[in-house]
């Protein structure tokens, strides 16, 4: 699995080059690779049929409990097969859909990067690793939503999706860390065995809520759902792939994966099913009033995600089985419908339902695929969607509590979905005659493959569901529950309450469809379209943040550098001084260490230099005085046995002199810039700082040094790191990670300085 994930990322990295050198055939090679990966994962399903699993582990950062451990079981393979299978079809589709665009190489690279992250996510066997891939999916989603980065709408949507899912992801990380602290490990397989201990822990509540924040933002649950309709600004293949079939299901995957650890508690039952039910209804209702094909599908996706959450929330065998079947069927029909919507948009120039109509004459094959997918969505026999809906109702009737209420809500939501499915099909392809911006015709064959395969799969699996049950659903449910579960699926279950509910749903959907215009009129009259609760909150927050930052900055960092410096220094003194006063043991006054003549001479030279620096009226003299102080410090280092520090200090001082010489001519006239009052204040601040540091030093030398560190490094430096210079060995070996961080900061700071200098230069050129 590790190799699979690495390979996908490798292909993602190579894609732009591949596309540059083989502009025509690059996508074929990529698609062939994905097909191979699909076949590999499909073949693995055979070996986990009996609830088994495959694992591999490689240390990454063992000190943090982070390992590259991958784990394939029924649940992850079900997701992997969906991700790779639909990914393959979307690639074929995109090869025509995106043709003619200038940055297709980048597009495929992002798509492959997403695929790798998603595969990594479902195979990750370590919570922290899962988090890494989780964030990578958010990042690639950001890049793909904002692919048309010349449009302000795309950029805003991309940022919105990134911020919402990113904040949720951070909350989730906090939850993961707490979970790791409780369980003593980040390995998911080890955590899964400690369900009872974790649930009875005092931190269980915060853990659950934080992790749910991650899952709910990713899977677009109310009130975090608003980013998903905005994300429709992405190219349609992306919407089909990320924002309906795969990525948005990551939250569902996470909760399914952690179900044995987090599920079946009062808190779980009072949040997850409720959020799911609210999302299910909200999505269905909002979908019904849309006129944009993609927005309409996005809201039905939200509804479907709510349904999945609801089912996971119950956690019964029925509901898990229903959830897994619904997951599969939704990915198929919704993927197909999105691709159809893209085809319609591509060929007719619009995806507005009010303009569309009668497209069956122009696009017969697309129409057939759309009809099959919509039938599956409406849950009509003999489609897989029918089986799925029967299971849904069965699970809802068997819900642990409030079964009746939930069933009623479910039927209501599904009525809307049925109505939307009819609307999608009839208004686009059958009724009336459209007013298309351009003359429509059938899409190229490659763009037909995806919708046709996905919708026919819905039909054929509906007729012969046994293989799906044995190969995927059974192992997935077994993996979630942690015990082997036999699953069987069938179209015809006899006349029972569930069938009656299905009939009722379809009838209700047809009624709703027929009264849609009145419904929309009422919706508009009530002004519901203008109510944008969570989306408005997001805008307020995002707009308010820079304002807040500007005010704070204005308060703390006033324009003159001296005021800014004063705030920093005083704040530092205040914090250190407070601790010093509070913690100092008055009984043990500091002892004045013995002083040598050399020390006195050095100190006198430095103090003299500093005093001269303050009073001199010549800049050159000031530079020299500053240099004297600096070299004095270097001498102190030498005297007290820190040659490395001294060497560095000498080099820095030399460079400072060179810098001064370079800028000397450009500096303004050297004069007093502050009045006597502020100079007196500065003297006080400086004296306070000096006194504080002196006190701190005297107190420090009073305590015995913790010498085991020095002893450790002196003893181990040569043995472990082949070096006698302890300072350097610490820098490049023992604490090399710190150094790496520091040089990164150094590089970024240099670029910042460079930017500032060049910016000023350009301003001068302009005037």
């Amino acid at each position, binding site marked *: 699995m590790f190799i699979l994930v690495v390979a996908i990322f490798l292909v993602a990295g190579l894609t732009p080059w591949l596309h540059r050198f083989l502009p025509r055939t690059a996508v074929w090679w990529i698609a062939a690779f994905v097909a191979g990966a699909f076949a590999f994962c499909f073949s693995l399903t055979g070996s986990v049929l009996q609830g088994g699993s495959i694992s591999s582990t490689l240390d990454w950062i063992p000190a943090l409990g982070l390992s590259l451990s991958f784990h394939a079981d029924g649940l992850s393979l079900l997701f992997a097969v969906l991700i790779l299978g639909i990914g393959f079809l979307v690639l074929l589709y995109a090869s025509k859909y995106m043709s003619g665009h200038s940055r297709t190489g980048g597009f495929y690279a992002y798509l492959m990067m997403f695929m790798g992250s998603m595969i990594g996510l479902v195979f990750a066997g370590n919570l922290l690793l899962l988090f890494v891939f989780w964030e990578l999916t958010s990042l690639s989603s950001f890049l793909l939503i904002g692919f048309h980065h010349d449009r302000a709408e795309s950029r805003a949507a991309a940022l919105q999706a990134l911020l919402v899912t990113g904040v949720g992801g951070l909350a989730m990380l906090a939850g993961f860390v707490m979970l790791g602290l409780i369980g003593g490990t980040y390995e998911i397989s080890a955590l899964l065995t400690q369900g009872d201990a974790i649930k009875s822990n005092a931190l269980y509540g915060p853990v659950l809520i934080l992790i749910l924040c991650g899952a709910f933002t990713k899977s677009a649950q109310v009130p975090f759902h608003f980013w998903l309709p905005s994300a429709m600004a992405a190219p349609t293949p992306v919407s089909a792939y990320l924002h309906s079939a795969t990525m948005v299901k990551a939250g569902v995957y996470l909760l399914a994966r952690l179900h044995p650890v987090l599920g079946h508690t009062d808190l779980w039952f009072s949040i997850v099913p409720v959020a799911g039910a609210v999302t299910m209804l909200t999505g269905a209702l909002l979908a019904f009033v849309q006129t944009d094909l993609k927005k309409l599908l996005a809201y039905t996706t939200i509804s479907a995600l709510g349904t999945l959450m609801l089912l996971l929330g119950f956690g019964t065998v029925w509901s898990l089985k229903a959830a897994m079947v619904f997951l599969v069927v939704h990915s198929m029909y919704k993927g197909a419908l999105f691709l159809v919507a893209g085809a319609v948009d591509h060929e007719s120039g619009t995806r507005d339902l009010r303009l569309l109509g009668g497209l069956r004459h122009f696009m017969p094959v697309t129409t057939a695929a759309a009809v099959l997918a919509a039938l599956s969505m409406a849950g009509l026999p003999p489609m897989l969607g029918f089986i799925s809906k029967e299971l849904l109702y069965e699970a809802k009737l068997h819900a642990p509590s409030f079964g009746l209420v939930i069933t009623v809500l479910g039927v209501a939501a599904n009525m809307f979905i049925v109505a939307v499915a009819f609307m999608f099909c009839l208004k686009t392809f059958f009724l009336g005659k459209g007013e298309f911006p351009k003359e429509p015709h059938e899409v190229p064959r490659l763009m037909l493959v995806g919708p046709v395969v996905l919708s026919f799969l819905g039909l054929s699996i509906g007729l012969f569901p046994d293989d799906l049950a044995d190969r995927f659903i059974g192992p997935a449910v077994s993996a979630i529950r942690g015990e082997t579960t036999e699953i069987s699926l069938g179209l015809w279950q006899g006349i029972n309450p569930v069938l009656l509910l299905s009939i009722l749903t379809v009838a209700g959907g047809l009624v709703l469809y027929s009264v849609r215009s009145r419904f929309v009129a009422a919706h508009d009259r009530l002004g519901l379209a203008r109510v944008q609760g969570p989306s408005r909150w997001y805008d307020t927050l995002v707009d308010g943040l820079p304002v807040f930052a500007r005010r704070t900055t204005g308060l703390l960092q006033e324009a003159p550098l001296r005021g800014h410096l004063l705030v920093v220094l005083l704040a530092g003194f205040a914090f250190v001084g407070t601790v010093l006063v509070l913690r100092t043991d008055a009984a043990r006054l500091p002892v004045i260490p013995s002083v040598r003549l050399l020390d006195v001479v050095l100190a006198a030279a430095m103090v003299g230099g500093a005093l001269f620096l303050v009073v001199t009226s010549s800049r050159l003299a000031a530079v020299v005085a500053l240099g004297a102080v600096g070299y004095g410090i270097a001498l102190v280092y030498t005297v007290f046995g820190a040659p490395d520090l001294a060497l560095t200090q000498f080099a820095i001082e030399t460079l400072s002199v060179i810098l001064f010489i370079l800028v000397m001519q450009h500096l303004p006239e050297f004069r007093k810039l502050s009045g006597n009052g502020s100079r007196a204040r500065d003297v006080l601040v400086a004296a306070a700082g000096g006194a504080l540091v002196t006190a701190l030093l005297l107190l420090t030398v009073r305590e015995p040094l913790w010498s085991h560190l020095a002893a450790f490094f002196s003893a181990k430096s040569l043995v472990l790191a082949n*070096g006698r210079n302890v300072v350097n060995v610490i820098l490049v070996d023992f604490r090399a990670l710190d150094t790496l961080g520091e040089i990164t900061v150094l*590089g970024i700071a240099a670029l910042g300085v460079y930017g500032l200098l060049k910016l000023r230069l350009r301003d001068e050129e302009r005037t």
Partner: protein
Amino acid sequence: MRSLILSTAVKVLVPLTLLYSVFLLFRGHNDPGGGFVGGLVASAAFSLFALAEGVEASRRILRIDPRDLIPTGLAVSLASGLASLWTGGPFLTGAWYASPLPVIGKLGTPVVFDCGVYLLVLGVVLTIVFALGEE
């Protein structure tokens, strides 16, 4: 503002200083020195040359844009840490070539790491110095 004395002096000083900076870099593991101070000394050499002959001339003898040295140095240091992927052990674990080489001494990934620091520091200082000098 050309100075004949400075121009003549740098012809000797710059190569010597550069040599010294490399010496500092490689001796750092056992004696005072290292990539950071080595990089500082090397940048002092190029800065001195810039003072004497102008920034353009100094850029020419450096041959590579100092801005490119920053990511290069960072990449070298990062890559030295990745070597432990093959030898096993966590990121940045030192790996050593068994027998010491003449002049350079023992060769291992920490030395490579230090070379990255050297390049980065050189890039950082010269980016700023050249930008200031061209102003």
